[in-house]
């Protein structure tokens, strides 16, 4: 299934972008045209489509949440 992921637009051109997600992954061909996101924006991506733009404060909160999840998962895996 597709999960909603938040990340940062690291490059954008003609409505397509490379997004680096807070979970450490990246996608090269995200459609950011619906939210008109530019380089540096934080976006919420579903599948390959950005459906929302996050404020820097919200992005920071999401990134912290991911970091916490990664820490907990790491501890659980030993």
């Amino acid at each position, binding site marked *: *299934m*597709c*999960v*909603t*992921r*938040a990340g940062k637009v690291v490059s954008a051109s003609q409505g397509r972008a490379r997004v680096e997600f*807070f*979970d450490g*992954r990246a*996608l090269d061909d995200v*459609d950011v*045209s*619906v*939210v*008109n996101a530019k380089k540096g924006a934080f976006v*919420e991506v*579903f*599948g*390959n*489509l950005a*459906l*929302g*733009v996050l404020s820097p404060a919200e992005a920071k909160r*999401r990134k912290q*949440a*991911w970091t916490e*999840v990664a820490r907990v998962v790491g501890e659980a895996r030993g």
Partner: protein
Amino acid sequence: MKADGVLFHAKHAFMPNSLGYCGPDERGQIQSDLEGNRSDEELIQTLQKFEAAYPFLKLIAKSSGREIFDYLVPEAYWIGNRLLDLVPVSDFYSFSHHEIRGRDPEKVREVFRKLDGVAPPHHTFYVMSTYATAAVPDGPNVTNEAKRKIAEVVDNCRISWGRVSKVGKDELKVVARRVNVNDGGLGLTRPAVRRVRYNPEVRPFGTVRAGDVVSIHWNYACDVLTPRQAQNIAKYTDRDISLVNRLMNSKASRR
């Protein structure tokens, strides 16, 4: 039964995984196991790494007292069956906060509050409610082109179904309904012919024929459905759409 459940689940998880949208980078292994009809421990371990799908299976399994890969469990999640109704709302609410990574807690609360706790742990509902609570700029004034793109991604992400009208080498023509976005929310188009990919090496696609109903995920035919499953996916999809439209309309009326 368990082996069937593992393969059924893998068939439906395969395409979004291969596109890089979820799960570990194990595309080759999943495909190889599906082509070999193998539901071994390695495949199970891979499926356990899916960050959303696997927790959903655990939730449904726990509520119904079944094993996680009991066939009815992934069937409930991807297609829909009576096991969905056995999941207590309080469990699903708690699960949505703690088990689904990356989901905004406020949006989760919004879904449950506006739907009075009626929210099924069904894949299609998850997909559609994600769109319904996303902060799409301009809300109801979103452009027709944006509506088309949103409808396309929701349609690709959900599990859809279609009746096969022609079998090609690696492509099927199916008669299916797509998701559309209209002023009242989400809906389904009238049935129309579309093309979907399939893998004839994956059982039972070697013998697929016109008249069969197939499940579809990201433009890929996942499995051939039984008549009961074909009825269920239509029934649960209708229910999901109506719930999501309630959610969206309450959002719009608040503006």
